[in-house]
């Protein structure tokens, strides 16, 4: 315990102070009332996001670019906490950060596949800077997808992508490669747990387990409902390491033919979190809201664990994602009454806008 106190005292203090700068329910209350992007940006310029949004003063506002800028703040938070946490434990937040490397890699492969210019692809990438281990510039110079995969040799993405190549060639679409990347990064998160032990491991195992459950559920809903994939195929795109959802449960959920059977196939506590929801689209937000509650609980438990720093980063990520969704919805002219359904963080006054 004493050792953990020494190892995590700085990191937990840092994470707590950074948590204090997250948007409050009050902030969300006002943000949800904004009519245009200018208003949202004006409001955010009074928050911790002012620095990353300063480049937009006088510039043409575009939801994609703003969302990328907001992510810059998330990456800055990662950089700060990666320095603060013990080096062994840092593998865990680093593995979560590799989700964004995975996103960048998918964007690059998509761009190469569609024959887009390097400058255009570069403009769509998350700006991870020195946090990224991907050879981005070399990848952008590749002429073909297979050539780009060869450039990834030292990274954890190389082998899964190589294994997915035959299916990519057979299907003539990027989907198998994208799924291989997703699965690789999730397995990387699961693998990173081996770097911690004891209570530290137990705590973070619960968090990552729940996170993997949510990711699996989200994928199952999207692949089955949005892409119309068969249950057999969908099961193969899930990842192990969930807290409540083992392979058998995932199989049952993937095979559920309709929403009521999907909900009844869910184990506790997810069945409770989703209640009797009548909308597939709501599932993602409801699960995220439940997860936010779990993350908040971390701050009232034993703080000398990597779980605390990770909880803050995941909260920050959910905040950035919610802001991104809000901005996109406002740009598309969605009615303000619907916006609260996109936000997974607590809003003052609940759902009333």
């Amino acid at each position, binding site marked *: 315990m004493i050792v953990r106190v020494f190892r995590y005292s700085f990191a937990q203090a840092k994470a707590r102070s950074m948590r204090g700068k997250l948007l409050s329910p009050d902030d969300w209350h006002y943000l949800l009332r904004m009519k245009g992007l200018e208003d949202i940006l004006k409001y955010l310029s009074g928050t911790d996001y002012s620095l990353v949004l300063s480049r937009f003063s006088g510039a043409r506002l575009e939801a994609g670019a703003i969302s990328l800028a907001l992510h810059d703040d998330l990456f800055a938070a990662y950089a700060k906490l990666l320095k603060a946490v013990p080096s062994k434990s840092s593998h865990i937040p680093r593995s979560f950060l590799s989700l964004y490397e995975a996103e960048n890699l998918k964007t690059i492969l998509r761009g190469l596949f569609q024959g887009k210019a390097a400058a255009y692809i570069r403009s769509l990438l998350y700006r991870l800077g020195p946090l990224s281990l991907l050879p981005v510039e070399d990848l952008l110079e590749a002429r073909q997808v297979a050539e780009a995969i060869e450039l990834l040799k030292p990274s954890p993405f190389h*082998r*899964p992508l190589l*294994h*997915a190549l*035959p*299916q990519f060639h057979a*299907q003539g679409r990027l989907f*198998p490669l994208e*799924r*291989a990347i997703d699965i690789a990064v999730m*397995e990387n998160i699961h693998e990173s747990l081996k770097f911690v032990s004891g209570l530290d491991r137990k705590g973070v195992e619960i968090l990552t387990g729940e996170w993997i459950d949510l990711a699996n559920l989200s994928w199952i809903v999207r692949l089955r409902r949005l892409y119309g*994939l*068969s*249950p*057999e*195929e*969908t*099961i*193969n*795109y*899930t990842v*192990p390491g969930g807290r409540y959802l083992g*392979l*058998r449960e*995932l*199989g049952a959920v993937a*095979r559920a033919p309709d929403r009521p059977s999907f909900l009844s196939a869910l184990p506790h506590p997810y069945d409770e979190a989703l209640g009797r929801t009548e909308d597939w689209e709501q599932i993602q937000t409801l699960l995220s809201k439940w997860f936010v509650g779990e993350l908040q609980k971390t701050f009232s438990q034993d703080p000398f664990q990597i779980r605390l720093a990770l909880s803050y980063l995941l909260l920050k990520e959910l905040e950035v994602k919610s802001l991104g969704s809000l901005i996109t919805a406002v740009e598309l002219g969605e009615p303000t009454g619907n916006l609260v359904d996109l936000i997974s963080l607590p809003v003052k006054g609940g759902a009333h806008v």
Partner: protein
Amino acid sequence: MFKSEKLVRITIQVPEQFISSATGILARFRLLHLIRIDETHLGRLGYVAETDGGLFKEYEELLNELESLVEILGIRPDGVRLDEEIIPEKDVFKIKEGLGEIRQEVDSALNQREGTELALRNKKSFLERFKLLPDELDLSQLRDLKLVDRMIGLVPAQGLDRLEESLSEVYHAFIDISALQGRAVILVFGLKKDWPVFERALKGALFDPIEIPPQITGTVAEIVAGTQIEIDALEKQAQALARERERLEHRFGRQLLTLRERIIAAQQILSARRHFGKIDKSYIISGWIPDRLFASLQENLLKATVGGVVFEKVAPEDLREVRKGIVNIPILFNNPILISPFEKLTNLYGTPSYREIEPTFFFALSFLLMFGMMFGDVGQGGILFFLGYLVFRRFYKYTDYGIILMECGLSSMLFGFLYGSVFGLDTIVPALWFRPMESIPYFVKVTLTMGAAMVSLGLLLNFINALRLGEYRTLFGASGLAGALIYWMSAGLGIKYILTGRVAPGELSVLGWSAAVLMTIIVLHRPLYRLFIKGEQPEPSIDKGAGLFTELMESVVELLDDLIRFVANTVSFIRLAAFALSHAALFIAVFSVANIVSGEKGTGISYWLVVAAGNIIIILLEGVVVSIQTVRLEYYEFFGKFFRGGGEKFKPFDRETGAEERKL
């Protein structure tokens, strides 16, 4: 040697039908600095020739084709000298034919090779995957199944559980046969009626099937053995084809490289025409050429065009634009082979203008002298010489640096003998002059004298430059003759004091009075010039509206600045002694370490290993430091005194021009 090559401006009028041969001759001459017509009066009036775009493109395509052949045959680039005249309009047919003949012969061998290599790759890949199956597995039996279907292939090992789960609702059988790089080789059986479920599940599991060609029968062991025999045969075939490629490389290598040179030369000629003028049916070519080559060029051109060209030759001094400074005359260095490598270092500082002294000779001599003084050691000098020789012989592009390194080595060896030092050992040869560590005060005096000599030489060259460029007024300035006289008198007395230890009061009094007179001249020369010499333009740095007092103040400040600089420049040469001493001190350090390592016995392998390593470090470290210091002394203390710069480099119309043009 002290002046750049004397140039004349020529203008040649060439009838249209002779332009190809005329350009070819000019390109071969390689000593014409082309004046771009578009930058001249004629060009501004629109009399500019155009390149034949179609022909240029044809050459571009031929070059691409040729490059691909060169790459396929693995021909290494080598210098090919082109002595024959290039006429782009005619040559294109010759090159096409030559290239076509080669292509025909190479293509058949090449197609065969590609086919063999592809077949070999496929067979090897098939064998690699097929070997993963059990030897005794009989494929004919698998093919005869009625109600059941099967698939053999690879899936990522971590995905096996998921695959099992995804098939849990249908009857199935799994055989996990072996593994390959994180993937499991599996044989899956299922009912034919359920097969669509299998296909979907296997798709999701990133299944990579091992295709079994329908004609293949027998056990895996038999098939593997048969495929291995096929691979052996294909490998033999590939080896034979590789030998054939070598034969073709040997046969066509030189020919292809020559053709490439011809294509590049033709493109160069075509693109250079953009810089020619054109009036009706005649081309106008204008440029600078060494005066000594004019007659020869004229003869060649007249011969090639049957007297069809018209020449105009003008000396630079007869050109109004040159006299007014509107047009720059390019500078073509004219130094002997041992000095010319230093032209690169002169150019790094700046390109001298056509009329001023070309300082490379002084630069080279003083560079070698100072380098030797600071790096004096027979052994290390020998190594530098050897390294320089290696660069000279092996690295074609860096021949100049090889020569500089060899000369530095020789200078270092000479001073090594003077200091009596061989790899830092002072017992091998006697010191012909003095040992630096034992005569430090003497060494400082020598370097100060050297500094005075270098500064004086700089002032003298400045004096000559001022006369050549007609800058007579600057002679009365602090950096001109007046300042130089003060410096020389002071330096003379200083040297006398160093040598004899005393200076007569009368001499000091003469120096004082002379300096006072000269300083008055320096301070007053500008305002007086302005008052009495009508039409004289003030220096660009001086505000035309500045009053007399301002000019006086500027002259005083300039005087003080220049006098301080004279002293500082001279004292700066003490670094010659300082770095020579640090060179010697490093040797002492190396030998001390060597003694400590070998237990103070001074013998043994470890002792000599440390000495050798120390010498290598000294050569690398001191070599760089001394070179930098020498260049610094040259640029700041020497060139700063007289160098005007602002000249234009002579760019001969040759291959290089062509390469630049092709980029444009």
